């Protein structure tokens, strides 16, 4: 019997941006393997290459070297097939600002081939689960930061993706909202959802992730369970600072 392909796999994955100012290597030869049902954290300081990595894995950024796949499907060669299997919560508020909260979810369902009635039911179900039912007729611009983030998670889950990508999901949120979102993510984890989360909050990685990879300057520096990483240097923060340096970055 053939082995099931991993949820996410990257082999020597790289991205070099070419512009008028010359070449900038954002990600260099990254190797990753994330199993099904795993909650995986990609940890790194600002500018480490986390968002570029997530961009490549979600088909939005074209790799310049190496390969990556989601559920065994090559992200560069078959992007549409990959998009069917992933849900993405990006760092920015990318909600459709022209339609209501509920319509953001209904149209997402219809983009993924759901019939209108089914898309509406799924939208209602998610709005209830994420405590957004009373905001269903609002426009996205009227939502608070936490509500907008919750709606983005709902949107990413509408079509029941096999892998959920979360790029800095709690950046800029107050502590209460952050803890509430963590609870939501833990529920997804308990349901067996495969998740790749990028963050630069060490406590977030510690609270949620089965395994973490620490990257900086586009290079993988360490990859293991939080417990084992801590065993090498005390706290996760110490390990992180030892690997990525203590100097202040602009």
């Amino acid at each position, binding site marked *: 019997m053939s082995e099931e392909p991993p949820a996410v796999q990257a082999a020597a994955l790289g991205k070099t941006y070419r512009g008028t100012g010359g070449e900038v290597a954002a990600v260099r030869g990254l190797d990753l393997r994330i199993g099904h049902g795993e909650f995986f954290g990609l940890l790194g300081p600002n500018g480490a290459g986390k968002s570029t990595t997530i961009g490549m894995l979600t088909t939005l950024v074209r790799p310049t070297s190496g390969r990556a796949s989601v559920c065994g499907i090559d992200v560069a060669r078959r992007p549409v097939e990959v998009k069917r299997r992933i849900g993405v919560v990006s760092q920015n508020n990318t909600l459709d600002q022209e*339609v209501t909260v509920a319509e953001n979810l209904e149209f997402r369902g219809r983009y993924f081939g759901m019939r209108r009635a089914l898309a509406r039911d799924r939208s209602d179900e998610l709005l209830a689960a994420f405590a957004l039912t009373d905001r269903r007729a609002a426009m996205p611009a009227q939502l608070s930061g936490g509500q907008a983030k919750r709606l983005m998670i709902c949107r990413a889950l509408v079509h029941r993706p096999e892998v959920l990508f979360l790029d800095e999901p709690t950046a800029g949120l107050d502590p209460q909202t952050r803890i509430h979102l963590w609870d939501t993510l833990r529920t997804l984890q308990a349901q067996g959802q495969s998740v790749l989360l990028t963050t630069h909050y060490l406590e977030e990685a510690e609270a949620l992730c089965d395994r973490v990879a620490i990257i900086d300057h586009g290079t993988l520096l360490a990859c293991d369970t939080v417990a084992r990483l801590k065993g090498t240097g005390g706290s996760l923060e110490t390990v992180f600072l030892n690997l990525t340096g203590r100097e202040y970055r602009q």
Partner: protein
Amino acid sequence: MTATFLAMLAREMRVLRRTFVATFLRVVLQPLLFVFVFAYVIPKIGGSGLAAGGGSFATVLVPGLVASAVVMQGLLAVIFPLTMELSWQRSIVDRVLAPLPVPLLALEKIVAASVQALVGGLLVFPAVLLVHAKGQAPRVHVDNWPMFAVVLVAGAVLASAAGLFFGTVVDPRQIQVLFALVLLPMTMLGCVYYPWAALGHIRWLQIAVLANPMVYLSEGLRATLTPQLAHMPAAAFLAVLVAGAVVLCALATRTFTRRVLT
């Protein structure tokens, strides 16, 4: 994939339904005021109301103003939302992550804007047809319906594709400059207010305006709506409108894909 494409069109129509009055007031108001002044007020206060190339000015204006409305609505229907979608929040990602190849998303935007352009043209048509002074009624008659449809659809697609092209290559902060430097001269020199044949008196201008795609739509509609007036040969405007629509669709699809995928 078809379901995704249709769902995206449905989303555009939902947005349009919500903004219908404001959107089409913008389209109809300018041509309506134009015919009110030039086909009603001027003849009433002693102006001749006669146009270059013969016939009443109203007759010349009908195809020209419909063409202008189609082009403006096609361009703006893409450019306005796109500048928002490509701004720093990049809400375009909402659609890019749908299971559809990105070039098809570009085509969907062109199709949706073309529908808006056609609706704009069809709303302007009765307005410019009905407003005129006594004795100044435009003489409009369609002999060749298939050619009328081809001209209108090709013109709408060309304008929408041009909108997508400009929307993806021009910095959103420079859009105002685009209006001033491109759209205004395009209308003033687009054979909207005079037939192309009448420019024979200014030969250099008659040749120079051939670079303006609006000329071919104005002349195409002139040939099909007011065939009694001198107009450009059908082969010329059909070739430019159809080939222009195809080339601009291909070009805009590429620039859009390059803009949304890094």
